[in-house]
């Protein structure tokens, strides 16, 4: 065994960091930092900033009145649905204010995509919102097809709509399970995962991957349907409604579940619009906005369906909305299979796509709301600017709005009802 000399000086990482900054400054020909030798504006051990507030709002959150304290939740809290930190200001058990602190999963995907070719972008966006991978690929595919001026063949559009609705079903199914889990019921999530695995096996039969499908291409899809996919689809379709009924019986009328969600986190339609909340969360507040109807993409203009809304705007309505949308998606899948034409699944596009200079906006309705891409081309092989609007990132702003006055334990229950996915929030 080696003995450590107790006299050895352990270098202070903050001091090292400061020295590095001074060295860089000197190399850049700048004067030494004015803060050199002064206090380092870092973080204390709890993660609450021990520096002067930068904005009005930050001062509001981090200034404590008599009897208030700050509680740090996350970033590795099991029920934050990923790596998310929220700082909760509490008075006793009552939440006074909430400050979400994001960026623990930030990978700079937009910047990466601006340095990738158009085809590779479709692989980079997969791990963003990892529960709606098909939708992640659909939005850039639409935008790039507009930029390049190519249309996917009809059969490809039908296959796209099919896999996208399947993806929506398992994503909504998981949300039901996670909501129950965050409220304290362990069983529903197990059944949710059984149902999800069935769908994921189906999608892996058609795409070759289980989670990050990489199935869409500019101008089509990667593979046509195959026997395994169709036989799994048939088996799944024969009992999926029973499975959903079972999950519903387990959760919907459960007294504890109703007690923890009814009237909880009530968001009015006006607030939801102002906050930019979209998708099922917005429709649960009674606002009929669905991109599939608002700007029909793919083949949604050929399918019959209505925009489902709920009146409540609370966690329970958001849960009911998901169930209704699962059933609607099954109805859509029936129609898609009925109408699916024969033909090719990929239009003719070159290996490296160089669209003419231009701009395009592609939007899809993902399980979490409006998922849009704004792509700019300058004529080169990579997008000049690639912007993704992730719905759960924007919906997260509702949490500080809804939580004040509620119990700490309800923070996670309300957050789970919005169904955010941190991979998408942090990009």
């Amino acid at each position, binding site marked *: 065994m080696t003995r450590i000399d107790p006299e050895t000086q352990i270098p202070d990482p903050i001091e090292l960091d400061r020295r590095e*900054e001074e060295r860089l400054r000197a190399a850049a020909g700048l004067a030494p*930092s004015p803060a050199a030798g002064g206090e380092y504006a870092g973080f204390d051990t709890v993660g609450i900033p021990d520096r002067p507030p930068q904005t009005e709002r930050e001062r509001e959150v981090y200034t404590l009145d008599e009897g208030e304290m700050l509680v740090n939740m996350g970033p590795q809290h099991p029920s934050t649905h990923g790596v998310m930190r929220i700082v909760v200001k509490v008075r006793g058990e009552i939440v006074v204010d909430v400050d979400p602190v994001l960026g623990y999963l*930030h990978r700079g995907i937009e910047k990466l995509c601006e340095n990738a070719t158009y085809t590779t972008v479709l692989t980079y966006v997969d791990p963003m919102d990892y529960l709606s991978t098909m939708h992640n690929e659909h939005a850039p595919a639409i935008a790039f097809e507009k930029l390049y001026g190519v249309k996917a063949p009809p059969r490809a559009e039908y296959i796209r709509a099919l896999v996208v609705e399947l993806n929506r079903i398992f994503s909504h199914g998981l949300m039901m399970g996670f909501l129950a889990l965050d409220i304290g019921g362990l069983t529903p999530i197990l059944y949710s995962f059984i149902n999800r695995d069935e769908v994921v096996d189906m999608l892996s039969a058609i795409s070759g991957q289980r989670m990050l499908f990489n199935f869409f291409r500019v101008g089509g899809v990667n593979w046509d349907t195959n026997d395994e996919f169709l036989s799994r689809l048939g088996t799944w379709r024969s009992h999926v409604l029973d499975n959903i009924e079972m999950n519903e019986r387990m959760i919907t009328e459960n007294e504890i579940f109703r007690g923890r969600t009814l009237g909880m986190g009530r968001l009015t339609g006006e607030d939801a619009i102002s906050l*930019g909340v979209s998708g099922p969360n917005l429709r649960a507040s009674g606002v009929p906005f669905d991109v599939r109807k*608002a700007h029909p993409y793919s083949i949604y*203009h050929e399918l019959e369906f209505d925009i489902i809304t709920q009146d409540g705007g609370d966690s329970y309505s958001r849960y009911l909305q998901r169930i209704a949308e699962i059933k609607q998606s099954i109805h859509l899948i029936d129609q898609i299979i009925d109408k699916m034409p024969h033909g090719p699944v990929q239009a003719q596009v070159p290996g490296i796509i160089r669209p003419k200079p231009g701009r395009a906006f592609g939007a899809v309705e993902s399980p979490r709301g409006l998922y849009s891409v704004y792509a*700019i081309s300058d004529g080169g092989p990579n997008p000049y600017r690639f*912007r993704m609007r992730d719905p759960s990132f*924007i919906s997260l702003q509702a949490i500080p709005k809804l939580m004040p006055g509620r119990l700490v334990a309800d923070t996670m229950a309300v957050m789970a009802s919005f169904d955010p996915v941190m991979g998408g929030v942090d990009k």
Partner: protein
Amino acid sequence: MADLRRSRPAAHALGRGRPLSAPVTAGALVRLLHERLGDDLRELWTDEDTVEFRIDRARNVDVLTTLRDDEDLDFFFLADAAAVDYGTDAHFEVVYHLFSWKHPAWVRVRARVDRRDPRIPTVTTLWEGAMFHEREMYDMMGIVFEGNRDLRRIYMSPDYRSFPQRRDFVLPDDAADTAVAGVSPLERPETWDLARFRDELTRSAAPTAAPSPLDTDAEAGEVAASESRPR
């Protein structure tokens, strides 16, 4: 906005039967925009499902208020707000995408922001949800939104001092390819000190009486991407 639920038709009556085409877009909406916005409207373009135009950055709140509150326009939903960097010799651009049930097109509003003085009024007064959009634009591009009461970094840590999505923030892999043989600045030293960077902005903003290049219609230094017709 206030009686949103009452004034709307039933949910099942909404929705559009088929995809949009250029004549639909270019008709009523464009006439209406000319009528309501007048001189604010510049460089209007349409494509199959988007109507886009450029406005003066100082007028963004007025224009967006008209678009949102006018009964015939009724663009009630802010679908997206994004920033684009058109290169070191050009300008930034803040782009808003809006949605309305009354018109079959997205509206894209572009506002140019000077690179040397990247400021634009906030729209969080119109849509609270613009807060995270603006915080992201500030974090990634360094655009300062005047009047925003929570303009903090959102993804990067608070003591980070660069703006990673600007075009002159070069990835390590690209550094070897640049003309200056591998000494591309990964993090720009002059933006390390955010407080000082802000001070410099205020100082440089005050004495410049000469018209900013944005106020003229001259397209100096603009790259092909912003010149082009949208597709």
